[in-house]
């Protein structure tokens, strides 16, 4: 019976923590070394956009990648020159380390110069994506 309570309590704490972390928009610190840059994209066959580039890192076992991608495409459609890409972690596993990806989807927002301006881990919200896109201009 103790096992039941411990399990339920653990799930509640874990679930609340993970849920709160989903979709949080993080701004990378300036001038930190080894930051993702849009220049990395061409080697993976992705074209940067004139108005900025959005890259969603996905996996084959990802429950929120599709819905997040739909919002990304929809939100970017209202802005000119913003390219939206999906990047398969199975095809390019190196990005997991170099871009420090711990969950899928993780979405990266690069400004027109190619600098990373924001990253969003997990299931993204429309408002969070809009906020991140604002940072591109």
């Amino acid at each position, binding site marked *: 019976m103790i096992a*039941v309570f411990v*399990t339920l309590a653990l799930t509640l704490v874990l679930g609340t923590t993970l849920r709160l972390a989903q979709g949080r928009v993080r701004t990378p610190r300036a001038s930190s070394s080894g930051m993702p840059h849009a220049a990395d994209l061409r080697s993976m066959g992705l074209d940067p956009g004139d108005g900025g580039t959005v890259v969603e890192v996905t*996996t084959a*076992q990802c*429950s*929120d990648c599709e819905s997040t991608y739909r919002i990304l495409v929809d939100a970017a459609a209202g802005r000119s020159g913003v390219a939206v890409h999906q990047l398969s972690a*199975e*095809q390019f596993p190196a990005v997991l380390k170099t871009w420090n*990806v*711990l969950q899928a989807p993780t979405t990266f927002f690069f400004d027109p110069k190619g600098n990373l301006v924001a990253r969003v881990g997990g299931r993204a919200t429309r408002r969070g994506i809009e906020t991140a896109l604002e940072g591109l201009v």
Partner: protein
Amino acid sequence: MTTQTSTTQAKRIDPRGARFGAGVTSLVLLVILILAPSVAALAVLGWQVLVFAIGAIRGPASGPYSLLYRKVVRPRIGPPSETEDAAPPRFAQGVGLVFAAVGLLGFLLGADVVGVVAVAFALVAALLNAVFGLCLGCKVYVLGLRVIRSRTA
């Protein structure tokens, strides 16, 4: 635009059915933990191992909980507004199968602590899905991919 390639036409499922299945699974696993260790717990766990196996092998829409959803719940709430790729929940069924099987083996061999812990892990994953809509297996998959691929690279 997209670089994600899929060679086969992906199977689609009603996401509410998967969520419902996770809810039923949570209840079943909870009952096992309350009854354990006992013959009754063993029987229910045996059933759940079978359910996970069907979901992992034939897909999440083939299991008995999914059937229950389609026969009883879905007619009352109508068709889904959007569908989901069946691969992630199928993978999750596989993860559930591993934990449930380890639990079953634990109880059968008299290692009750192993049985309880394994079932508890499965319960955490199922509850996270049912209550919070989180896919724990998907998160573990990314970390696994990261570790394995960086080792072979």
